[in-house]
Every structure is written in structure tokens, then in C-alpha cells.
């Protein structure tokens, strides 16, 4: 190495991060990353947020990434630091979130020796990441960092790990600018115009069209959501969103049928079932969406836009595959639609809408709230009021969730007009996601109102991050729908396992008000419906972080529900509706 190498690997690392536009790192120190922390100490360009557990760092970076469209950055030490990060990495992989995770490693000469805090991080994270690197030579360091950012954000985004042996960050290293082109990874983003023409021809003749849009539209950027909205309005087609896609189309729009899938609306699922042309954009036909595959939208011809070729024809074969960036493909569709003279079948479309309106009239999300003083709060009502009150206040609101019934109720009863304002763990379903994710969102949007809609069980999985909120004065609001049960599991036990509530009661819960207090936050509690609005208002007025413990009906189930292994038209509706649905088959019982 030449004598003019004056910067250490750690300094080169930070320089590369700066050149990638990194402003914030979520991390936790340890022996293997001490040189990096030393370099961080000596600079001001990059802010470091000290989490309380490495799992929290990855979810925080996910929240940061999802609410900004930027790459989230994580820094953890070797061994346990890296293994603690694995859940977050898989979460980001499943939900296609761009993350670069820097992990410390023992020095290169000790690798393979079972050294203190050594773990085979690249081995462990290979199936947990989109790609990973072990940097073994100083001259590779800067190139690998730039490449990692490129890989994380290009194509279908995902998490990338860079494993950094301690000697690599201590020793001098040369700097390298980002390369103009990656040698092998160049995902296609432009749509094939022949396929676009085929898609428009299909859409023009449709008698019962349907648009099904997912998280890929959000990942593609706000222009994609704008193009989708324009196209949908121009065509007059009904549209549904996946759990990941909520916000990519304005929920208040009359063409929006709500979320589809296992806990989707009656109208969205029946329209999927009965449509004759289905336009799927940035959605991957996952099992929570399709229900029983051989009964899924059997009568439709399908157009599928996805940037990930492996998502096309994976579960459901499609007539018109379009491998492209969602935004570019939607804009191409829009242009081709406008240029085409083919007529649309207006009478057919009108009668399709009449049918859909009939399903809508069923009001499948209906619930009844006892408004008397002392009335037990329905969880749906708590979300509805949270939505109405925050909307009336007009401040920008970001919602994260944990995993369970509360997550589904939030998806059903909180409505999103814009992309990037709804952050939930969809693919992996990670309890403990919401609080750290909210932290990451609040870092990126210090003046916004950031609320984690939580369950009393999930919140305990990463409760330590309350400490991080206190340290950085992040006024995140934790809104717990406390049903004293792992409600979603309890619901399955009720419906599928003879109401044998095996290990799902949330026994020995902490006093959440005191817990908030212990973490320098503000605690509050609503026991009955007459207290709900006051607590929500107090929470929103509070300048500090808040835990609001909302006691809700313990027996409430989340409906509608398509049981595992059932078809879209075999939906269970709630007690508000007359008996419905096919129930659960033995084959369905074996499914998750």
C-alpha cells in the first residue's frame, strides 16, 4: 500500500457513507466496531442514534427508510450484535426495504478460529439478506460500500450486510468513488411496450376490471402512486390495496374498495374473485392475499407489473407479465391508454359497479360501540377515533404497528391518503416492529405525529426502545389496544382449536402508566368509552413520548376473515352479519 494512504478503514467507511448521502445511523457499539465508533466521534456529518438492542436498530432503519424512501443504515458489533440484527434483516427482506447493515467482525487472521464474539455473519445472513459482503482487503472497502447501497435500493429493494473485520477498519485504506455501473446486477426498469399494448387492449375490453396494487408502488416512489391514481381515475376501475400498499391510492376515493386478503373487505375480495381482468401492480400474490390458490380469481385474465421477475408467475400464472419499475410501467400504461381509440364497455362497467356497490352495502367492517358511560371500548372504535381526531387536527401523521389483531384493525379503520405514511411488518409479521420503526420515522420527521398502534403483548418485545425515545426526546405515541390476550392467536384458537386458549393470556402485564413513567415518558389510560377521546387528545397534546393504555374488549375478533385454505367468496363475516362462510377445512388447519 502506498505511503499517502492517510485514512483508516473506518474513516474511509464514513467517507463512503457520506458520499452515499447518509445522515443517520442506528447502532450499538462493541469491541469489533470500536474503531468505527472512534471515527464517528471525530465527525459531525453523520448522526448516530444509540438504540437499546440491535433488533431495534434494524426496525428503526426500516421505519426511517419507509417514511423517506432513503436507504436505512445500521451499525452493530460482531457476534451477538449481528445475530440480534437478523430478525430485522429478514423483516426488511420480506417487505423489500432498503437497508445497509454494517456488522463488526473479528480481525481477518482470527476468522474461523471461534474467536471471542465471532459468528459466521455472512453465513447466517446469506438467506436473510438480498446480498452480503465480507470485506477482506482494504482496497475493496470503499467499492463494497458503494455497491451495497446500489444493491439495497435498486430493483426490488432489500437489506445488504457488510461484514467488517476489525483490522480492515483499523488499517489504512484507499478511497474509491462509486462505480458507474455494476458488473452483473442491473435490474430492468423499463417496461416492454409490446406488453404494455397488450395490457391496454385487455383493460379496454374488460367488463369486470379490478386493480390490485401493493408495496411495490410505494417502493417505486411517490410518482408511481400519482401515476396509479391518475390511471385508476381515468379508467374508472375499482382498486384495492394490499396491507403493504395502503396509502399508494387515496383511501377516501370512491373507487377504493379497501384492503383485500385474509382480513380485507367483502367488496375487495369478491371483486377479486369475480373480475374478468386483473391489473396487479407491485404486489406478489402472497397467500394472505390469494386464499386458496385454485379458487383465486379463476375467471380473470391477469396483467402483472413487478420489478422482480421471480414474483411473476410464482403463485399465480399471468397472461401479461411486465417486468419493470411500477412507476415507469404505470406511466407507460397511462400514455398507451390515452393514445388508444379502443372503446371501453361503459354499460358493463356500470353494471359491475352496481354489483360492487351491493357488496359495499354489506358494510363488512361494521361494529357496534356501546356509547353508554362505562361502556367497554371496541378496538375498532378506538382506531376510528384515533383516525378522526388526528385528521381533524390536520397534522401530518405516520402510523406504525406491531403484529396482531390491532394491526389488522389499524389497516381497516385508519385511512391513508398518501404513500410512505403507513409502516407495518407485512411479510414476516414481526411482533416488536412498531416501536423501533416509529422511532426511525420520528428521527426522519421530527415535527410529525408518529403513532405506534400496538398490542399489549407485542409492545413488550422491544419495550427497551422507550429508553432511546427518552434519550433523543422523540415524542412517539404508543397507542396500546390492550385486550390482555395475544388476540390474533386467541382468535385462531377460538375459531380453529375449540376455544382452548393455550398460553395466549397476557398474564402479569406491567402497569403501562408506571412503565412510561420509569422511561421518562407520559403514561395514560382509558378504561371505558367515555374516557377515550380525552386520552387521545391528551396523548396528541403531550410534548413527550406517551404510552396510552387503552383497555379494549377482550373477546373481540377481527372480521371479515378468509380462513386459511378458503376462497375469497368463503369469507367469515362478524357477528354483526348473519351466518356466512364455509368454515375451515382440515387442509386449511395445516396452513399458517
Amino acid at each position, binding site marked *: 500500500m502506498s505511503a499517502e494512504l492517510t485514512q483508516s478503514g473506518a474513516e474511509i467507511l464514513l467517507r463512503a457513507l457520506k458520499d452515499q448521502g447518509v445522515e443517520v445511523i442506528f447502532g450499538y457499539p462493541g469491541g469489533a466496531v470500536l474503531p468505527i465508533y472512534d471515527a464517528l466521534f471525530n465527525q459531525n456529518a453523520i448522526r448516530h442514534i444509540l438504540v437499546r438492542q440491535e433488533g431495534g436498530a434494524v426496525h428503526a432503519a426500516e421505519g426511517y427508510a419507509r417514511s423517506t424512501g432513503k436507504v436505512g443504515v445500521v451499525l452493530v458489533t460482531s457476534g451477538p450484535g449481528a445475530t440480534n440484527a437478523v430478525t430485522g434483516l429478514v423483516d426488511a427482506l420480506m417487505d423489500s426495504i432498503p437497508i445497509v447493515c454494517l456488522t463488526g467482525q473479528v480481525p481477518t487472521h482470527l476468522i474461523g478460529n471461534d474467536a471471542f464474539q465471532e459468528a459466521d455473519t455472512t453465513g447466517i445472513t446469506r438467506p436473510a439478506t438480498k446480498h452480503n459482503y465480507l470485506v477482506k482487503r482494504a482496497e475493496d472497502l470503499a467499492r463494497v460500500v458503494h455497491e451495497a447501497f446500489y444493491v439495497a435500493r435498486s430493483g426490488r429493494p432489500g437489506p445488504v450486510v457488510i461484514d467488517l473485520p476489525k483490522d480492515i477498519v483499523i488499517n489504512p485504506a484507499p478511497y474509491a468513488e462509486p462505480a458507474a455501473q455494476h458488473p*452483473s446486477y*442491473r435490474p430492468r426498469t423499463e417496461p416492454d411496450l409490446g406488453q404494455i399494448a397488450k395490457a391496454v387492449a385487455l383493460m379496454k375490453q374488460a367488463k369486470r376490471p379490478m386493480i390490485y396494487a401493493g408495496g411495490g408502488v410505494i417502493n417505486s416512489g411517490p410518482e408511481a402512486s400519482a401515476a396509479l391514481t391518475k390511471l385508476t381515475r381515468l379508467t374508472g376501475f375499482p382498486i384495492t390495496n394490499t396491507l403493504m400498499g395502503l396509502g399508494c391510492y387515496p383511501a377516501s376515493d370512491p373507487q377504493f374498495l379497501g384492503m383485500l386478503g385474509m382480513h380485507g373487505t367483502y367488496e375487495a375480495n369478491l371483486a377479486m374473485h369475480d373480475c374478468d381482468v386483473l391489473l396487479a401492480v407491485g404486489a406478489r400474490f402472497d397467500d394472505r392475499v390469494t386464499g386458496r390458490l*385454485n379458487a383465486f380469481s379463476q375467471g380473470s385474465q391477469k396483467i402483472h407489473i413487478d420489478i422482480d421477475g421471480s414474483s*411473476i*408467475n410464482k403463485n399465480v*400464472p399471468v397472461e401479461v407479465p411486465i417486468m419493470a419499475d411500477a412507476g415507469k410501467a404505470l406511466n407507460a400504461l397511462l400514455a398507451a391508454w390515452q393514445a388508444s381509440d379502443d372503446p371501453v364497455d361503459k354499460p358493463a362497467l356500470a353494471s359491475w359497479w352496481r354489483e360492487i356497490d351491493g357488496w359495499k352495502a354489506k358494510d363488512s367492517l361494521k361494529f357496534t360501540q356501546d356509547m353508554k358511560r362505562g361502556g367497554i371500548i371496541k378496538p375498532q372504535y378506538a382506531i376510528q377515533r384515533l383516525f378522526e381526531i388526528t385528521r381533524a387536527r390536520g397534522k401530518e401523521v405516520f402510523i406504525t404497528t406491531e403484529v396482531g389483531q390491532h394491526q389488522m384493525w389499524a389497516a381497516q379503520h385508519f385511512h391513508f391518503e398518501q404513500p410512505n405514511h403507513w409502516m407495518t411488518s407485512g411479510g414476516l409479521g414481526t411482533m416488536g416492529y412498531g416501536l423501533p420503526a416509529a422511532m426511525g420515522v420520528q428521527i426522519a420527521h421530527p415535527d410529525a405525529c408518529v403513532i405506534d398502534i400496538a398490542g399489549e403483548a407485542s409492545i413488550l418485545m422491544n419495550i427497551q426502545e422507550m429508553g432511546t425515545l427518552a434519550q433523543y426526546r422523540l415524542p412517539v405515541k404508543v397507542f396500546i389496544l390492550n385486550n390482555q390476550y395475544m388476540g390474533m392467536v386467541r382468535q385462531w384458537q377460538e375459531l380453529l382449536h375449540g376455544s382452548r386458549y393455550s398460553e395466549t393470556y397476557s398474564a402479569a402485564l406491567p402497569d403501562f402508566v408506571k412503565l412510561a413513567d420509569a422511561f421518562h415518558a407520559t403514561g395514560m389510560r382509558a378504561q371505558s368509552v367515555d374516557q377515550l377521546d380525552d386520552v387521545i387528545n391528551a396523548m396528541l397534546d403531550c410534548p413527550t413520548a406517551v404510552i396510552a393504555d387503552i383497555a379494549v374488549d377482550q373477546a373481540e375478533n377481527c372480521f371479515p376473515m378468509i380462513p386459511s385454505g378458503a376462497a375469497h367468496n368463503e369469507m367469515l363475516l362478524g357477528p354483526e352479519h348473519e351466518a356466512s362462510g364455509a368454515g375451515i377445512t382440515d387442509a386449511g388447519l395445516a396452513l399458517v
Partner: protein
Amino acid sequence: MTPRAPDVPSPARNLVHVMLSPTDTTQRSATISVLVDNESGVLARVIGLFSGRGYNIDSLTVAPVDAGGLHSRINVVTSGTSMVIEQIKAQLDRLVPVHRVADLTMDGPHVARELALVKVIGTGEQRVEAMRIADTFRARVVDTTLGSFVFELTGNVEKIDAFIELMRDLGLAEVSRSGIAALARGTRVI
């Protein structure tokens, strides 16, 4: 062989434009060649993809194939329904160090060859018979003692299977097979 320069933009994988049917359970075998960066972990990535997603590996070979040793070619023989094979190709194609994926079985005629070393232990008439059969298979003797042979045989998988089958009654002791190497016929390259 010289692989195409890696800086030629990777052509977008041809998406199947024929309809695949999930109810079609017919299994087919596919010989897939993958051109990858010759970097550490790349084989683990490919194998992990197959094991993690439950795909079959019937044969697998890997070796650097260019002068600089920058690129390796992986040949994998797998089997599954058409939908599964298309998935396998798409999954391989999106791995970061993968330059190109070719389905030699689907894309046209191809040649596939395997090398086997076969140890046969025996004396007397058995030994003579083993030698005679080896001759008709054009196997070479690469090691011999008074009581044993090691034959080297190349050919397609069926030929090697047949040879090994015949050796069973003649003192077959041990087999080492390379897995297949494969190329498209004619002027086509990966």
C-alpha cells in the same frame, strides 16, 4: 471458453409468454447454466437458494471458465414442474453476482458430458470381463494393480449409469462422478 465481456448489459431475462399452469404436475428435467462472478460465497448462495426453497439438485458443477478466473460457470441439473423451473431460473437471475442464466434444455439442443472414475476390484474371469466392457465403453484405465482397476469414462449421464450398472457384478468398489458440464450446440453462447 471465453464468456462474453461482463460489461455488456445483462439482457432482461425473457419472461415466459406462454401460460404456465399450476395444475400441470408433469415433472421435467432442466440443465441450467449460470455465469457468476468467481467470488467467495457464490456457490453457497446458489446451493442455499436450492435448499432453502426446496428445489432439487440432481447434479452440480462449478469452475472458473475465463483466463483471469473472474467468472465461474455453474451447471445445475434440476427437475420440477414447468412453473418450478421458471421460478428457479428467475430466482437465480436475481442473485447479485449472477451475470447470465441459460436453460440449456429449453433453449435448444445442447451437449452434456460427465466424467466418472470407477474402481473395480476383482481377479480372474471377472477382471477380464471388466476390461472388455471398459473397452466397448471407451473407458481408459488410469490406475491398475493386480487386483484392481480405476477406469476413467466420459459421456452422457446414461452411458455412465449403464457402465456402472454393468460393473456391479464385476467387483464395483467405488465411484467418483464429476457432475455434468454442458454447452449449447452450434454458435450459441451463454
